[in-house]
């Protein structure tokens, strides 16, 4: 009776499989407990010793809960779309589906070898058409909904169209890209193309020209968190900013709820802080600066409207939509040259270099809304298009980067906060007494802010505004190995959803997985697939890596359902994830997107809880020594 480890372990792994002891019964009389691991990307290298750290802990906990009498859901699956399989395909010609399948077989064997108690009958694979059919379905729901600020929830776009037909745009309180005003009559007169453009402004999944991180070497657009120091995280290739027509998700509509509901979660303070920081809520004012000799206005957002008397110049982002109109003929050549230079710069480069400020004068001036003084308008790379309004009022006396810029461009500086009583303080501390500031003189900074906002509102110069650092999420990738969009374009180029009954839209067979040289996805090569007849063409971009992982935790509840992403009964029983274990690398990306999708599905009445992950533990890393 020796302890023969190998024989014993092999024997029981075999027996557990045979007896299906980990199959989760649909016994709904027992209380439920849902223990989830962040599912792995099945890479060619297989599992390393770091992976199982979280898996072992969750396995122990799941077994413990089962022995305590809970009906425990503890599933496993694979986040199977992704760049490595595609690059491997480009190098070797092996189809990504094939290498992914092989890798999954290996992963499953490795996981089995560790004796985990997964219910493999619920395995999900995000690259399986039976799974991504529902990813596409959820995308279509996002496409056909808008966010109503009055009821603080998503509502069908059809309701919005009816409203426009009766009332025009007046009275809508929607989360939208650009605010616009039109009457019911005007709406009815618009062409389908124009109407589509307006609706795009409201849809939760929408198309717009965005500046993207284009990586020439990888032939694709990368998300901000896939870019490190101006280089692609994978491969370390140079990344440049480029305008492209892309799909985006309006996650900003949910910013407030994503922020407030953090309080209801049993997550670590550090993790919550990372999410709060990413959302980056700030209260302040939107101020309109009239442009001299023009009927245009420059709109800025500031959290420090109290410093308005210290404004000595303004800066617009090089991508600002007014840049052309602001540039005077005398300055045209120098501005064009500068814009060309900025194109080669990644967002990170642009924000990183405080010491080496660059920028040029546009030739135009704005009028100070209080003093009437003329203020020069510059363009500089340190102002980004996507944050706030893409234009700033520069207060060099009270902002480090504005100061550095003023020094470089030799622009005047007006002191507006007397901090002599606070010798060690910085701008962020919001302390000191206002000087050189007209009606604000003598006030403490914190008291001056609301007074300044009120005065702006009273004089019709600006309004109170909450701003978020969180930006809408870019949702297009020029890759092969991802979910195809369930979208076709008619002869006018208007996007149209593929009928639910025709889902999934499956990937076409290809033997060349390289993106085209003009930046299109490899899907564009599959002409027969793209052209569906009658001049109707398919979208050739694919969805990003986080699409499939934004809802997979719901699929495990009812993984083989062919009529819905999960049945009502299974969703009502399993509710949400009681314990989620995974690495901090997903602290903002995956966890933010998954919460967003979950809240959207909650608005549609499709899931019973507001949040997907009740308790979350971040396991540490195992480092090589």
């Amino acid at each position, binding site marked *: 009776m020796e302890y023969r480890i190998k024989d014993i372990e092999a024997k029981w792994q075999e027996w557990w499989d045979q007896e299906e002891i980990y199959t989760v019964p649909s016994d709904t009389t027992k209380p439920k407990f849902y223990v989830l691991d962040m599912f792995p990307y099945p890479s060619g290298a297989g599992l390393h010793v770091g992976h199982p750290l979280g898996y072992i802990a969750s396995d*122990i906990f799941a077994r413990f809960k089962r022995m305590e009498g809970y009906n425990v859901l503890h599933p496993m699956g694979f986040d199977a779309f992704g760049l490595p399989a595609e690059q491997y395909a480009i190098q070797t010609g092996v189809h990504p589906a094939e290498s992914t399948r092989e890798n999954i077989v290996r992963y499953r064997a490795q996981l089995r070898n560790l004796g985990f108690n997964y219910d493999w009958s619920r395995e999900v694979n995000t690259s399986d058409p039976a799974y991504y059919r529902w990813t596409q379905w959820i995308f279509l729901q996002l496409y056909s909904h808008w966010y109503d600020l009055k009821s603080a929830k998503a509502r069908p776009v059809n309701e919005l169209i009816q409203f426009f037909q009766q009332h025009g745009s007046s009275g809508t309180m929607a989360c939208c890209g650009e605010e616009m005003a039109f009457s019911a009559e005007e709406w009815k007169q618009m062409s389908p193309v124009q109407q589509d453009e307006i609706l795009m402004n409201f849809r939760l999944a929408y198309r717009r020209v965005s500046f993207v991180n284009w990586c020439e070497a990888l032939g694709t657009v990368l998300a901000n968190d896939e870019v490190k120091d101006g280089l692609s995280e994978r491969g370390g290739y140079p990344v440049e900013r480029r305008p492209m027509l892309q799909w985006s998700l309006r996650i900003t509509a949910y910013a407030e709820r994503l922020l407030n509901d953090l309080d209801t979660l049993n997550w670590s303070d550090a993790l919550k802080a990372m999410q709060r920081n990413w959302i980056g809520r700030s209260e302040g004012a939107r101020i309109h600066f009239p442009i001299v000799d023009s009927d245009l206005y420059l709109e800025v957002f500031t959290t420090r409207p109290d410093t308005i008397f210290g404004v000595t110049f303004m800066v617009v982002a090089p991508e600002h939509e007014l840049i052309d109109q602001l540039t005077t003929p005398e300055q045209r050549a120098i501005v064009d040259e500068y814009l060309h230079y900025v194109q080669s710069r990644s967002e990170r480069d642009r924000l990183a270099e405080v010491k080496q400020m660059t920028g040029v004068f546009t030739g135009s001036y704005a009028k100070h809304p209080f003093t009437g003084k003329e203020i020069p308008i510059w363009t500089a790379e340190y102002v980004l298009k996507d944050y706030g309004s893409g234009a700033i009022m520069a207060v060099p006396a009270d902002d480090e980067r504005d100061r550095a810029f003023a020094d470089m461009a030799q622009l005047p500086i007006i002191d507006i906060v007397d901090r002599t009583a606070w010798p060690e303080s910085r701008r962020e501390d919001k302390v000191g007494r206002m000087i050189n500031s007209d009606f604000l003189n003598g006030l403490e900074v914190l008291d001056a802010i609301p007074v300044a906002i009120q005065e702006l509102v009273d004089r019709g110069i600006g309004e109170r505004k909450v701003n978020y650092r969180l930006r809408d999420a870019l949702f297009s990738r020029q890759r092969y190995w991802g979910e195809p969009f369930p979208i076709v374009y008619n002869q006018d180029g208007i996007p149209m959803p593929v009928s639910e009954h025709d889902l999934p839209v499956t990937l076409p067979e290809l033997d060349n997985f390289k993106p085209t040289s003009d930046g299109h996805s490899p899907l564009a090569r599959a002409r027969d697939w793209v052209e569906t007849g009658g001049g109707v063409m398919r979208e050739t971009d694919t969805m990003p890596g986080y699409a499939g992982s934004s809802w997979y935790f719901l699929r495990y509840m009812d993984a083989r359902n062919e009529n819905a992403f999960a049945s009502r009964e299974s969703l009502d029983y399993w509710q949400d994830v009681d314990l989620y274990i995974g690495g901090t690398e997903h602290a903002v990306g995956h966890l933010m997107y998954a919460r967003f999708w979950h809240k959207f599905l909650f608005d549609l009445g499709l899931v019973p809880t507001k949040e997907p992950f009740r308790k979350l533990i971040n396991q*540490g890393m195992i480092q*090589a*020594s």
Partner: protein
Amino acid sequence: MKEKVEGKHIFRCAGLVNEEDLGHYIRIPVLIDYVREYGTDSSYLDEQSVRQFVEWRPEYKNAVFECANGRIENGVFTPAGKKDASRLYTHSEVGKMSKSKYNVINPDDVVDVYGADCFRMYEMFLGPIEQSKPWDTKGIDGVSKFLKRFWALFAHQDQWIVSTGGHPDRESLRILHQTIQRVRDDINRFSINTCVSHFMICVNELKRLDCHHRDILEPLVLLIAPFAPHIAEELWHLLGHKTSVHHGHYPEVIDSYLISDEVVYPVSINGKRRAEMTVPTDTDAKKVEELALALPEIVKWMDGLHVRKVIVVPGRMINIVAG
């Protein structure tokens, strides 16, 4: 390190590259399986590992490898001076394990040597789950021995030694229930590393008491099942069960067993520990003092000394102040 000269890849040993020339080179990752003395300052590739490397990255099959003491071309080593084994020194990078650095340690290899139960408990034993920690296999033998000791409570060589007659002694029951309580508390706090230590302490204590009673060991099998599911299933079936241990009920603490009816006192003279004594828990301080002074070891150490004072901390310790 690598540079390209006239279309030929040249790999240069880390020791031959000057800091200031680093810009001319790129670092090429190598699978750690090929590296000799990996992780040390003098990790290197020899002739054989260069051949393995070329097999793995065939694009470098015509490359020249310049070593500290000669060069390898087309798989053949030409020494520079006296005949010596080739050494291409490498740089070991310590840090996050990642695919692009090729320093992945495969858990299968660890499981192959120690088994899955041991690998599971060892990874947990490395520290709190939230903490990052280096992988080192130094402690894994300790966990492996622990599992063997656990097994040894049930079987000795060919002999099944679990006893069923009579009742287990109170001390064994106390140890069992204290372990149940600690493991339950810690598992609920996700403090899994400390659970592993509780099991180790428990097994050591039971071994000390020579306890092999079924009423103690059977709950212990249930208790350890989530952590070491294979050995638990085997022992569970050897105990005669037909269904899986993982469908069993997790043991509950019985509070009355937590109170020990005996207490072990360390006995010191002038703060130096000289003996140990076990007495019933309800023994009063006066009696404890008497018993301590009568211990043969204490009598021996006290030879020629005079008792000034005896301090008894009930349930904890005894110190004799002598001079």
